[in-house]
């Protein structure tokens, strides 16, 4: 049995590529031998859910993820992604149209935002300053937690079995002390606030600041995206933070378009990985992880080919990894709990996507023309969102969904012919299955119609501009991208599945239950969004085990 590779990465999504690149660059400074890394990707190109594809002639679609902010600057720099072609163009406007009156619009310019909000409520405009400062404080606390392996408090018990993480105990203690230190620095009042914020609903949180129903519905947008919860479900406040903790050039909370679509992110990381010596094989679907004697020793491809390696790391989501790629008998031989952890892992898909080629720029009701530059959220007050959530809860798509729309071609000249536009429509809520029934073409068409009608209502004349429309339900996303149930975060971002409990209790530090087996996808800490942090953190732990220097 020849082990040609030091590591096999299952899945060429952005995190898998980051892990591969970091591994290949590990030990560079210490002058160690380069690790041989192989990335296996099922599709004919890498990227996973950070993908650009020409679906309609002349138009490049960001087929899944569509905006960029969370990608950690440390990774951007370490891999020198600009040299590999990545350019992120920030936008400075967020808005919500209103077909019955004036829409809501916020800007990166604080004064302009306050003036904009004053048109709806002077009280809300004034409260906005306090709200923004509170969010900044919450971001300040979470930022140092992103690019580190989450410490596990159970490791502090000196009598605990510690078979999974041989590096535990000391590192965990140090990690916890660091967090405690950061926590303490926030001051007594803020410490209470942080605990409240991490567990409360976004509805309750916004009610403490604002009065205008539509504004609250708009502000809640980031807390329900990709999440199978409504605005009054506890835990949704954290999801908002997850969307605000990103940055573009040090501006916390800023979002931008990757020039050429989100595939440019994956392409740049893949280019950096290839330059570092990583081998990438596409059209190579992994069917099974080969476990021998409690150790991961390689993988079997769908075509039967077996490839051996010293370590295996899975970029697939936890459910897919532990329920499909690994035999139950192998799991049970190590720890019978893991199979049930995987079965119970919450990974409900709740979002669909429409990618639309447009003949011109639509005009949204109640908004100035410039609003097309940034995100356009079609929604309403909390009742609108709760009603949309109700449809979902009872097994259907939202008849009047919440939509997060961007038109990157307002600034990116590379994605559509001059004067034409690409519109990305993120749809919340859309179930993975309709009740217990699978999606049918008729149902999908009816879903598409409801979404297009909702846009038309908020942008009269929009339908006449449509040149082509690609519609993806969570079911399509699972089958085409490989995310279980089409969940965009590889597992919901609720506190029970976060930090050292992500993905499962005891496996929160990127190591799997078997020796030489690791996880590096968004299903691990700190979670989803095109962040790259899980991939980089996983690589760091692997390099420790390889005794191969630090990156």
């Amino acid at each position, binding site marked *: 049995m020849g082990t040609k590779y030091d590591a096999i990465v299952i899945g060429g999504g952005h995190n898998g590529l980051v892990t591969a690149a970091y591994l290949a660059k590990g030990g560079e400074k210490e002058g160690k031998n380069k690790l041989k890394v192989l990335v296996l990707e099922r599709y004919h190109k890498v990227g996973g859910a950070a993908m650009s594809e020409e679906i309609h002639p002349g138009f490049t679609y960001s087929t899944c993820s569509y905006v960029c902010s969370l990608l950690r600057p440390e990774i951007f720099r370490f891999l020198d992604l600009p040299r590999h072609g990545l350019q992120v163009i920030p936008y400075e406007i967020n808005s919500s149209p209103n077909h019955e009156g004036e829409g809501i619009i916020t800007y990166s310019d604080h004064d302009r935002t306050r003036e904009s909000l004053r048109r709806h409520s002077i009280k809300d405009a004034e409260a906005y300053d306090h709200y923004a400062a509170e969010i900044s404080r919450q971001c300040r606390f979470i930022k140092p937690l992103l690019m580190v392996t989450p410490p596990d408090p159970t490791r502090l018990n000196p009598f605990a079995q510690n078979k999974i993480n041989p590096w535990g105990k000391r590192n965990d203690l140090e990690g916890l002390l660091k967090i405690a230190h950061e926590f303490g620095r926030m001051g007594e009042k803020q410490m209470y606030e942080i605990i409240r914020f991490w567990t409360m609903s976004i509805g309750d949180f916004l009610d403490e600041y604002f009065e205008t129903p539509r504004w609250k519905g708009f502000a809640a947008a980031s807390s329900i995206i990709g999440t199978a919860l409504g605005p009054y479900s506890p835990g949704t406040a954290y999801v908002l933070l997850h969307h605000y903790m990103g940055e573009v050039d040090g501006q916390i909370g800023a979002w931008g378009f990757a020039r050429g679509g989100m595939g440019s992110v994956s392409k740049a990381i893949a280019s950096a990985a290839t330059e570092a010596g990583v081998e990438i094989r596409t059209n190579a679907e992994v069917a099974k992880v080969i476990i021998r004697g409690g150790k991961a020793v390689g993988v079997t491809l769908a075509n039967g080919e077996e490839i051996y390696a010293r370590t295996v790391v899975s970029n697939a989501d936890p459910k897919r990894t532990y329920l499909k790629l690994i035999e139950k008998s192998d799991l049970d031989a190590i720890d019978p709990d893991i199979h049930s952890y995987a079965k119970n892992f919450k990974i409900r898909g709740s979002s669909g996507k429409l990618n639309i080629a447009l003949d011109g720029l639509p005009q949204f009701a109640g908004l100035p023309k410039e609003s097309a530059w940034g995100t356009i959220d079609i929604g309403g007050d909390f009742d609108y969102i709760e009603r949309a959530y109700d449809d979902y809860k009872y097994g259907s798509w939202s008849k009047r969904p919440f939509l997060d729309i961007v038109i990157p071609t307002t600034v990116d*000249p590379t994605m559509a012919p001059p004067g034409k536009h690409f519109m990305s429509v993120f749809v919340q809520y859309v179930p993975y299955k309709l009740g217990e029934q699978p999606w049918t073409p008729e149902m999908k068409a009816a879903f598409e119609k409801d979404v297009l009608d909702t846009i038309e209502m908020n942008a009269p004349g929009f339908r006449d501009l449509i040149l082509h429309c690609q519609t993806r339900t969570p079911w399509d996303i699972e089958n085409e991208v490989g995310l279980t149930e089409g969940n965009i975060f590889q597992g919901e971002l609720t506190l029970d599945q976060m930090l050292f409990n992500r993905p499962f209790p005891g496996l929160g530090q990127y190591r799997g239950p078997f020796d030489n087996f690791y996880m590096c996808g968004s299903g691990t800490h700190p979670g989803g969004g095109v962040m790259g942090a899980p991939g980089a953190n996983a690589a760091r732990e692997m390099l420790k085990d390889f005794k191969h220097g630090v990156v």
Partner: protein
Amino acid sequence: MTHVQHLKPFLKKTPFHEPMEAMMHGAGWIRWQGYYSPAYFDSTQSEYMAARNGATVYDVSPLIKYAIRGKDAAKFANYLVTRDLTKVAPMNVAYTAWCDDDGRMIEEGTLFRLGPNDFLLNAALHQLHWLNESAYGFSVEIEEISEQLAGLSLQGPNSRVILEVLGVQGIGKLPHFGIMETTVDGHWLRIDRAGFTGDLGYEVWVKPQDAIWLWETLFRIGDPYKIAPMGGHALEMTRVEAGFILVDVDYIGAHHAIRPTQRVSPIEAGIGWAVALKKDAYFVGKRALQKEKAEGSSRFILSGIEIEGRKPAPGAFLYADEKGTKELGLTTSAMWSPLLKKNIAFAQIPIAYTKPGTEMWIEIWYPKEKKIERSMVKCWARNRMFFDPPRKKEVV
């Protein structure tokens, strides 16, 4: 009673002022040699991104322009500047320095050679006094013609396609630093392929009465190509990425240095390549520069450096060691580059440290969460031209 109520506004407006004013949302006017000039229209960030992603328009009308003509114009120009103009054919631009007799740089800028004995010097500072003084004995006429031309700098990856759509024949063939003159819709245009962003870009000059036509036409046809107006703040970011130096920022013009030691030679200012020490004719400062070169007596070279971390480091000291016992020099311009995701700066460092990759230390004081903090981090010498895409010089 105060004198203020009796004063009249005195800043001049360029021919593009009116359409610029209409886009000026952030009260971003600054002064440029007595003219209103935009620092930013709405947000510096979006203007900077437009320059690197689509195309931007910047009003360069306040540039001070001197026509140099006459029987001895070629001889005089070659005497005045450091570049060898015998190698610059008509309808080409030469970027060059001009020095005092001690070989200390007065300024640098572009010199258009429009004909064998027809030149146009673009300067940021007023130079007529010096030009007249230097022209003693030459049969030349020097005329300040700044207001006879209105100019827009059209820069960015889409600048060429916009000029194609405008109807400029042969724009793709215009080489880097080439000049062409043409007519579009009955309007005379002079286009040179140069600029201050280090990217593909052109300067488009028109008669002042055609300024509004040019502005409106560019914005109309440029809309699908992501055209945007640009102010001086975004321009400043692009020029640092491009490695271009700026008078009184990266060096002090010899004519208004207070102490003689403040003056620098073009070699020290990092544009030694633009000094043609081998040219046959004498030029002002040649002897001193030859001596500096032969003796290796340059005190420093303005080089590019890349700095660890993300704290911009203007006016920061560089050291050979972490403890800061051996001081090497000082940064001039510095910025975090959003495009390159690098912390970059220009620094005056001894020649021994200028080899790309040479490691140094830099002491940065920066504001953080309402207080000032200090950090001592590594930095490395780099080619000052941080951003240099192939499309800059590409001919299609």
